[in-house]
Every structure is written in structure tokens, then in C-alpha cells.
């Protein structure tokens, strides 16, 4: 299960999360994002309880996307203890993605 992240819940769900968080910045019209979607979903199921997985729709959350200077999607970020620890741009396979996010 992924969590929908908004400006309103970002602080609580991401920055104050007791476990690491992966955040997928995406949009419906972006085909690489559509291909990444199921991979993100898979990670959320496999890592349930270990890693929280959130999704930010950049169309609806322009301010949040701007705050992290998201300039290309899909962009996936990792957060740990309230800090951004990694950022990966583009469509990657699950293992590659997790490795480059530091998991």
C-alpha cells in the first residue's frame, strides 16, 4: 500500500516517519511514471513495515514538487530521519532503484 503525500501531510508522513520513506513524484500523463507505478507498489508491499512508500502527484502538488526542485519525472527520493538521503531520476528496475536509493 502506498500513501498519497500532499503538502498537508508531508511533515507527518515523511519527515516525522519512524521508518525510512520512499517518495515517488509522478503524473498521470507521464508514461515512464505509469511503468514505474507497479514497481513502486511492489516495493511498498514487499517492504511493508520496513519502508514507507509515498506518492506525490506533481500536478496536484506543484508546491511540494517545486520545493524539491523536481524537474524531471519520475523522480524517486528517499528520506530518513527527516532528511532527504537520495534522489533517482527516470524509470529503473526494482533492484536498481532500491540500490540507488540506498536500500
Amino acid at each position: 500500500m502506498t500513501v498519497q503525500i500532499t503538502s498537508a501531510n508531508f511533515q507527518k508522513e515523511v519527515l516525522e516517519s519512524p521508518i525510512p520513506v520512499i517518495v515517488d513524484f509522478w503524473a498521470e500523463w507521464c508514461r515512464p511514471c505509469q511503468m514505474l507505478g507497479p514497481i513502486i507498489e511492489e516495493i511498498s508491499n514487499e517492504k511493508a513495515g520496513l519502508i514507507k512508500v509515498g506518492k506525490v502527484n506533481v500536478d496536484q502538488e506543484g508546491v511540494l514538487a517545486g520545493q524539491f526542485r523536481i524537474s524531471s519525472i519520475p523522480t524517486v527520493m528517499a528520506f530518513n530521519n527527516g532528511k532527504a538521503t537520495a534522489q533517482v531520476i527516470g524509470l529503473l528496475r526494482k533492484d536498481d532503484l532500491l540500490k540507488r536509493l540506498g536500500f
Partner: protein
Amino acid sequence: MYDVLIVGGGPAGISAAVYLQRFKRNIIVIAKDHGALGSTTHIENYYGFENPITGKELVEAGFAQARRLGVNIHENEEVLSINGSGPFNIKTNGGEYLTKTVLLTTGMNRPNLRVKGFTTLQGKGISFCGICDGFLYRNKKIGILGAGDFMAEELEVLRNFSNNLTVFTNGESLSVSTHEYPVVTEPLVELLGVDSLTGVKTQAKTYDLDALFIAAGTPSASDFAVRMGAFVNQKNEIEVDPNFSTNIAGLYAAGDCIGGLLQISKAVSDGAQAALAINKYLKTITS
């Protein structure tokens, strides 16, 4: 509606075309030029030729061979975009085509701009895909690098997002219309910005920009693949399975664009294997 549209007329594309034509498939080859082989003057490691041959001779012999079998080859035509999936809609500078499957055999053409900042600012304001990233720059200052049909195609996409567009031809002469948008023809000397792109610099002037979209030359196989959501590795090679299929049903790739041994022999083999796999796939889909 074609069964197979092959992008590229090199050894992988033509080899696939020959097999598919003999399978009586309805196919078309769109070949922009003679590719990397066109500029190869001396080939003596390819099977069956007593004396060295030029790449041009080999490519032309391939075209002649395919045409003798009835293959429809559109030379000097450039694919600009591939949309949809089963069927795919292909737009070229000569027309539009519908096809059940696509085989990418365009060779390896890595976008490369020898300008300071190009590598470090990729994904930080430098983008290779208007339809992927244009929306993120709504009403911002956008630059487009390019001078031909590919640039014009990206311009069409990007003008949906912003009116603040400038075309940078980087020293090339402009071959297409840019509507009312300003054009800078001077070569770029530096891309500016630390955390993200802030502008570009020519010898004479600095231009403030929020994003620069690269659409120079011709779109490569990986440009198409990225836009369509196919896996492309960090070397810009398209990832395919043993059947030369990408992760998108009906989209195949073969030859140099999937990496491995960059040799004619391997491209020919790829093309043949891809053709067999595509023929099998076509039997499984109705319509």
C-alpha cells in the same frame, strides 16, 4: 495498418525486414540515412566479401536485396514521434503511420553536447523529453536546443506549457519554422547553474532559463524508448528480453541500440531473431 514498422535501415533493420517480408507480413522500413555504417569506409571483418567494402556499399546492397523481395523502404524519412501502444502511431517528417508493432534499429546515437555544465545539470533543468517534463515548467522560461524537425516537434509539445520559449540552434542553421519564438543561432559556451539550471551563455550574451530541452539532430532509439516508458540503462542502451522485446508489448529493439557487440554480424543476427519473435507475437494478437 502495418504489422511491423521498422525504424532504421541498417543491418539489424534490413535483416529483420527480409525475414518479415518472407513471412508475408505487411511491413515498412523508415530509414533516415545510412547510419553509422554510411561513414565507414573499410569493412573487412564481415563474412563473405573477398575484398574490403565500404559501409555505404553494404547498406545500399541491403536496401536492394530487401526491395527485390518487395520490402517498402522509405529513405531520407525521419521518425519524429511514436505514440500509443498496440497500435502505435508513428509520425515522421513525411507522414503518419499506424502499426501493430515497432522495431527500433536506429543504432547508437548518444545525445552529447560538449558544453560545460551539460553532464552535471542533466535532470536539473536539462531534459531530453518535452512530453515527460514540459509540464513541470508551466509558464517558465524554456530553451530548446536544436535546429531541425526534431526540435520543431519538441517545440510543438512545449508551447502547450509556456509561451516563454527560445530556440538555441548552437551554431547550426535553422531548417524549420519556429513560429514567433526567438531564435539564438550563436553556439553555446556554457550552461549555468549549480543545483539547477539558471541560464545559458553564448560568446556574446547570457540568457536566463529555467529549463533547456535537448532536441538536436534526430531522435535516437533511446529517446523514443524513454518517452514510451521502456527500460533504458545508464549507457543509454534499450533493455530487451531474449526475444528482443522491451517491457512494452509490441515494441522491439535490435542492433547497436541495445548494446553488446557493436558489429554488423551481431546486428544482422539481432534483426533475424527479432523478426522471428515479432512474427510469433503477431500470431498471438488479434485485429
